[in-house]
C-alpha cells in the first residue's frame, strides 16, 4: 500500500527543466534514496516533497491526501539539512522541542519527549549546550532528533553526511539506519555518494539530468544496472570493446580472444559491442571450469589498502581492471609479466555502443 506517491512530477525553472516525469511510490516505513551527481534534480525533488518548491505539474500524495500545493509548515514532514541548520540562539533541548512548541504541546510533555530523543541519539547530557559547543556529528544527530521529535509522517534528509569526516560519516550512517528501522518512519534520503545510498536504502532511485534512470533495490542497482549511466555512476566499471562472433551462443571476442557471455545479444555476427564488467568480477588465474579466460600482461598494480587493483593489457590496447583483496601473503605479479585472468560467463553486461539500455539481464531482475 503506497504511503508517499509522486506522480508525473515535473519542475522547470524558467526554460531549464530540473525534474522531468518523476514517478515514485513508497510504502510506509520504506527507506528510499535519491542518488545522482549534482544537478540531477534529486534535491529539487526532495524540496518538492517538503513543500519548499512547487511542482510545475504532477501531484504528490501523502497518506491518501494531496499535498502538492500545501505550504511546508502544514505538511508534518521532518527535514534534516546538510548544514545542520540548528537554531544558534537555542540550546539543544530547545532545538529538539521547537516543533512541539509550535504545536503547543504542554511543557512537561515536551520535556519528556526531548529527553527520550536525546537518549535515542546518545546525547542525553548535552541538553543545555548550544549548537556551537558540539562537534559536527553531534550537531547533525541533534538535527535528526529535532526532525523526529514531533512524529512527522515522513523524514527527509538532504545530503546529511556530506559536511562530515569520512569515519564519522560511516558511523552516523549506521546510526541513522538503526534509528529509522527502530521507528519505522518512511524516509527519503538524498545523496551523491553511492556507498551511502547502497548501504542505507530499501530502494534507490538513480537520477541523471532531471530524469529517473532506474529504481530498484541496492542489489539490483549495482548488479543489474538498467542504463549505461547507472552502470558507470554506481561502482567501478570496465567498458570493454567486443566483437560479436555468434549471437545465439553468446560468443564474442575481446582483444582478439574469444569469450562466452550468458546475457542475450541482439546483434549480428561481426558487429561491435561494449561489455560492462566490474573489476571485482575478474579473478587472477584460470578460475573454475567454464570460466572465460583472457591472457595479457600486467600494465599496472595499484595498492589501495584492503583492495589491490591491477590493470591487465590485452591485445588492441584493451585494458581490463581487476580487484583482489589484499593479503599479507599475497604475491603481487610484477608489472610487465604475463598473466591469465578469468571471469564467469554471467559476469559481463552487454551494451550496444551508444545504447542507453542494459542487456536482458537487467530485465530479469
Amino acid at each position, binding site marked *: 500500500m503506497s504511503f508517499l506517491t509522486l506522480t508525473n512530477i515535473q519542475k522547470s525553472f524558467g526554460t531549464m527543466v530540473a525534474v522531468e516525469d518523476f514517478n515514485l511510490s513508497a510504502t510506509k516505513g520504506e527507506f528510499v534514496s535519491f542518488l545522482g551527481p549534482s544537478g540531477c534534480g534529486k534535491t529539487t525533488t526532495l524540496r518538492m516533497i*517538503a*513543500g*519548499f518548491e512547487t511542482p510545475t505539474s504532477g501531484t504528490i500524495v501523502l497518506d491518501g491526501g494531496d499535498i502538492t500545493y500545501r*505550504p*511546508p*509548515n*502544514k*505538511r*508534518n*514532514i*521532518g*527535514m534534516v*539539512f546538510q*548544514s545542520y*541548520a*540548528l*537554531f*544558534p*540562539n537555542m540550546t539543544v533541548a530547545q532545538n529538539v522541542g*521547537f*516543533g512541539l512548541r*509550535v*504545536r503547543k504541546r504542554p511543557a512537561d510533555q515536551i520535556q519528556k519527549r526531548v529527553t527520550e530523543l536525546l537518549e535515542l541519539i546518545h546525547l542525553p547530557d548535552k541538553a543545555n549546550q*548550544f549548537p*556551537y559547543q558540539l562537534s559536527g556529528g553531534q550537531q547533525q544527530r541533534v*538535527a535528526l532528533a*529535532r*526532525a523526529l521529535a*514531533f512524529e512527522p509522517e515522513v523524514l*527527509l534528509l538532504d545530503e546529511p553526511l556530506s559536511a562530515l569526516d569520512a569515519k564519522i560519516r560511516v558511523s552516523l550512517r549506521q546510526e541513522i539506519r538503526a534509528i529509522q528501522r527502530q521507528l519505522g518512519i518512511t524516509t527519503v534520503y538524498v545523496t551523491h555518494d553511492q556507498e551511502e545510498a547502497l548501504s542505507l536504502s530499501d530502494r534507490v532511485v538513480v537520477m541523471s539530468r532531471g530524469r529517473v534512470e532506474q529504481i530498484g533495490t541496492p542489489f539490483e542497482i549495482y548488479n543489474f544496472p538498467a542504463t549505461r549511466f547507472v552502470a558507470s555512476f554506481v561502482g567501478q566499471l570496465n567498458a570493454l570493446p567486443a566483437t560479436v562472433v555468434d549471437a545465439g551462443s553468446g560468443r564474442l571476442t575481446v582483444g582478439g580472444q574469444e569469450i562466452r557471455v550468458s546475457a542475450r545479444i541482439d546483434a549480428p555476427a561481426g558487429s561491435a559491442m561494449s561489455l560492462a564488467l566490474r573489476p571485482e568480477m575478474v579473478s587472477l588465474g584460470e578460475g573454475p571450469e567454464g570460466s572465460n579466460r583472457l591472457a595479457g600482461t600486467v600494465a599496472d598494480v595499484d595498492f589501495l589498502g584492503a583492495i589491490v587493483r591491477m590493470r591487465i593489457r590485452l591485445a588492441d590496447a584493451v585494458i581490463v581492471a581487476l580487484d583482489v583483496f589484499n593479503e599479507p601473503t599475497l604475491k603481487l605479479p610484477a608489472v610487465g609479466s604475463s598473466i591469465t585472468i578469468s571471469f564467469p560467463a554471467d559476469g559481463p553486461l552487454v551494451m550496444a555502443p551508444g545504447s542507453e539500455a542494459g542487456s536482458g539481464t537487467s530485465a530479469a531482475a
Partner: protein
Amino acid sequence: MSRFGAWWAWAIFIIAALYMLVPLVATFQFSLQQNPTGEAYRYIFNDVKFFAGLGYSFLVAVITIVISLLIIVPTAYWVRLKLPRLRPFIEFMTLLPFVVPPIILVFGLIRSYGRPPLAITSLPHGSDVVLIGAYVVLSFPYMYRAVDAGLASLDVRSLTEAAQSMGSGWPRILLRVIFPNLRVAILSGAFLTLAIVVGEFTIASYLAPWSFAPYLSQLGVFKAWSAAAVSIISFMLTWAAMGILILASRGSAGRVQIAGAR
C-alpha cells in the same frame, strides 16, 4: 624579512593611532586650559541649549534607527531568502549616500520639500520629517551592511526552512529564529547610526540649526573651551558605547561581526 615586516606594520599602526589620539589629547588639554578645575565642563552642564540640542539629535537618531530597522531587517531577510538577484541592486543603492555628498542632498531636499507641491518643511515638524528621511538614507548603508552581515553568518535559508518544516509560520520564524540571532548585528548598526546622526553637521545646519552638531559649531566660535569639552564628552560616550558593543558580540561566541566587518 618577516621581522622587518612586522616592525613596519606596527610602525604604521602607531603613527595612525597617534594621528587619532593627538587631537584628542590636545582637545582635552585645551578644554582645561582656561580653568584647570573644569569650568568649561561646568558651563556645558549648565547650558540649556546643550541638553536641548543633544536631546533633539538623540531623539532624531532613535526615530531614524526604528524606521531603518523596520524597513531594512525584513527587506534584507527577504532579499537573502527569495530575491538574491536583487542583492547587487541593493548594494549599488548602498553606495549612493557616499557618492551623493550631504551638501548636495540637502539642496535637493530643500528644493523638493521646501516649496509646493511637496511643501513639507513649512508644515509643523515638517523639517524634522525631512531631516529624519535624509538620515534614514544616510545611515542606510551602515544599517543594511550590519544586518546583511548578520544574516550572512546565519544560513538564513536553511534556518527558515527548518522552522517551516517543523510547522512554524512567518511571525514565529522572524521573532524566534531570525531576530534573536541578529541582535548583535542590529545593535551594531543602531549604534553606528546613532553616532552618525548625532555628529552630522551639514544637513542639520540647514534643516535643524538647533541640533547638536550646529550647536557645537556655534559654541566653537563663542566658547572654544566649552566646545572642546563637548568634544571630549562625545568621545567618551562613543567609546563607552563601542566597548559595550564589543562585549555584547563577544558574549555571542563570535558569531556576529561588527558593522559588516569580515
